[in-house]
């Protein structure tokens, strides 16, 4: 037998306008709002859906075909029948006009029975793409699937990896207009509760018209003034699951293929997911390469400017003469030359991102090869400057996060300016400024430079070096009280 509805489940429309009239009025009678009225004996069912976000075949097969013969039922029996026997797991009783609107805009079909009993049946159209490979977090080893714009799919990709009831979800609908489904994911028993509360509070305070993507949340979650990112985003479910197991928190946002990981440490930007899929010795090597590349990306142009303007005595005479010969016909000072070249590179990079891929190779050849060669031949820039900027730029792209890549650019500019004014002294000032900034930075109240400052020797085993897991069986103590990870 089916479940009888309680009397209080039915609602009355106290307004003079019917729900349909109000909807038509509020939606300005938009074209994609579909209204249909069916008479079933003494009962009238108004069916409303938004064509563009609902599946018409689902409406036909699971609603219209099922109600056409229900013309002999009393109104309460009709509602009860619909609620219990429509072949869907997602059917809701609606109690007010606001909830009606909310469901309608989320792809539900609304059934209004005799003007005052409302049911919402999920008939959402699948507007998302399928799970595909990651675009900017490519790996050779390990899983290839990546998050997409569909909230449930993303959640499913994580649940597929962490099959435990302790994987908890705290959901919010953010944005006055967008009402974007946003969730905090954490593993109860591993993640510290105060971290969950802290991030929940931050999300609850958000009052904005819309959250279009997870990137919108950054400004609410990131209070640090550091140029370096204190929030890590990933589109890889394996990396996200790894973060959960470490005791971190994920924030999933509907319509966003990137999941936010909190808290984030400086060292996280030197780690990739396939670091854990290969021999620790190889991982250590590649992490050190990333560190060297990071240092080259930041310091190389500044050191070059410093060498050619202030600290000429610190290079051997043959190198000095080589630089001097190459710069003979260059009309700009080394500082201007460096800035011009870096700006030219940034223009090329931005162009490469924005233009269709079919035109990408043309821009690369024209911008990189033809212009570079022509600039050297015309004596506008020196070959050595092209080498310096190219090595620095390529090294900067080695960081596994686009936010980190972008922050490197600012440090590079800062150091070039300081080097052009003060030489090596300026570079050391820059280092002090950067270190001071990084050591005073926090990510969700955790020290950003951990495990280097404050130092934790055990955590160094998975820092810039990585030892086999038998040497590190415990979780990061500042992330979790549940320390034992491997027995």
């Amino acid at each position, binding site marked *: 037998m089916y479940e009888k509805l309680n009397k209080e489940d039915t609602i009355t429309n106290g307004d003079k306008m019917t729900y349909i009239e109000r909807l038509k009025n509020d939606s300005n009678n938009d074209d994609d709002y579909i209204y249909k009225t069916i008479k079933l004996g003494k009962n009238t069912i108004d069916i409303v859906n938004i064509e563009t976000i609902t599946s018409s075949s689902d409406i036909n097969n699971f609603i219209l075909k099922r109600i056409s013969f229900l013309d002999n039922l009393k109104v309460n029996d009709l509602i009860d029948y619909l609620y219990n026997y429509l072949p869907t797991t997602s059917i809701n009783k609606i109690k007010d006009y606001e909830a009606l609107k909310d469901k309608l805009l989320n792809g539900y079909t609304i059934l209004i029975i005799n003007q005052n009993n409302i049911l919402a049946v999920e008939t959402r159209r699948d507007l998302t793409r399928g799970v595909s490979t990651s675009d900017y977090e490519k790996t050779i080893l390990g899983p290839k699937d990546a998050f997409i714009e569909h909230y449930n799919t993303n959640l499913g990709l994580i649940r597929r990896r962490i099959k435990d009831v302790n994987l908890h979800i705290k959901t919010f609908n953010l944005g006055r207009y967008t009402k974007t489904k946003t969730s905090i994911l954490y593993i109860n028993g591993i993640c510290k509760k105060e971290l969950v509360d802290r991030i929940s509070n931050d999300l609850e305070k958000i009052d904005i018209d819309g959250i279009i993507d997870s990137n919108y949340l950054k400004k609410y979650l990131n209070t640090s003034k550091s140029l370096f990112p204190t929030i890590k985003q990933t589109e890889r479910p394996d990396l996200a699951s790894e973060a959960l197991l470490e005791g971190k928190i994920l924030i999933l946002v509907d319509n966003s293929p990137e999941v936010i990981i909190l808290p984030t440490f400086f060292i996280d930007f030197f780690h990739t997911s396939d670091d854990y899929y290969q021999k620790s010795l190889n991982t250590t090597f590649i992490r050190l390469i990333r560190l060297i590349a990071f240092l080259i990306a930041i310091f190389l142009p500044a050191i070059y400017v410093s060498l*050619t*303007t*202030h600290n*000429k*005595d610190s290079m051997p*005479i*043959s*190198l*000095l*003469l*080589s*630089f*001097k*010969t190459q*710069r*003979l016909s*260059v009309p700009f*000072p*080394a500082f201007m030359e460096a800035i011009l070249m870096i700006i030219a590179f940034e223009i090329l990079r931005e162009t490469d991102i924005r233009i269709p891929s079919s035109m990408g190779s043309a821009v690369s050849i024209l911008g990189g090869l033809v212009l570079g060669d022509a600039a050297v031949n015309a004596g506008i820039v020196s070959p050595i400057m092209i080498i310096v900027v190219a090595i620095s730029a390529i090294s900067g792209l080695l960081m596994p996060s686009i936010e980190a890549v972008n922050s490197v650019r600012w440090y590079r500019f800062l150091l070039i300016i300081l080097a*052009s*004014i*003060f*030489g090596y*002294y300026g570079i050391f*000032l820059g280092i002090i400024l950067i270190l001071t900034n990084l050591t005073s930075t926090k990510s969700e109240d955790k020290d950003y430079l951990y495990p280097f400052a404050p130092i934790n020797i055990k955590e160094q085993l998975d820092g810039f070096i990585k030892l086999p897991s038998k040497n590190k069986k415990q979780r990061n103590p500042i992330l979790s009280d549940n320390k034992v990870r491997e027995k």
Partner: protein
Amino acid sequence: MKKFLLIIIFLFLITGCDSYIELNDLAIINTIGIEKVNDKYHILISLIDEEIENTMEPSTTIKEIEGDNLNQAINDLSLKLSKKIYLSHLDLLVINETIKNNDLETIINFFLNNNETREDFLVVITDNLKNTLEKTKFKEINNLIENNKQENSKTIYTTISDVIKNFYQKENIYFPYVTYQESLSLDGLITYINNSYKKIKSDDVIYLNYLFDNIDTYKISYKCDDNKYIYLNILTSKTTTLEKELIITNELKVITNDCKLKKKDINTLFNDNLTSNLKKITNKKITIKNTIRGTYEN
């Protein structure tokens, strides 16, 4: 904001942009030659040319200047150059025999007061300043001294810091002596004694190097019979200087032993020769310990 401004002001007060100069605005000097002509300093400056093809052996131009004193002469050089005189990469100071011990203080003071030059450039004495500077590349002299020092210990690599140190400690300063007649050659050492030069032959420099614990390696031969020689290669040597004694530890390798000498005899031959030569330059007791490897009769 106040803190930020204070930091900026502080930075500008404690340093400045005065060291800023572009590479192309430098006149790079790699060699300075000094001699005295008619009681005036005659200085030859070797400037690295603007356009060079080989950065390892760049072409140079010689400029000549004269002055009553060294500072004035160097300052007058700027009258002949449109670029800033750059002494940081000075590699070689060539002094002519006309410079006496009294003039040495002037030269030392010049380099002590010049904060741009390094203290590791080579100082040599030559018989012909003009030829030495004009007909040789600065690397040639450097390599000549360096190779002879490393391969046969027949010279001493004297830097300006050695000169300064020994001058103020009132110790003998030994300069490599290079000559240029038809080609460049190394001809032992020169040292000042009572404002005049004393020449030390190349073969004797080895024993001087023993005193200073400055032996890299060298080969020596002794004639023991008609057309029969014993050749030794001194691989390493360590001299410990005590108050009244020199303890020398050598590692020798016998290369050829035509004389078929025994190990004990080789030891005696080498020690006697070394001791007799060292006695000429030191009064200390000499103790020699050798390790001998190679072909010898047991």
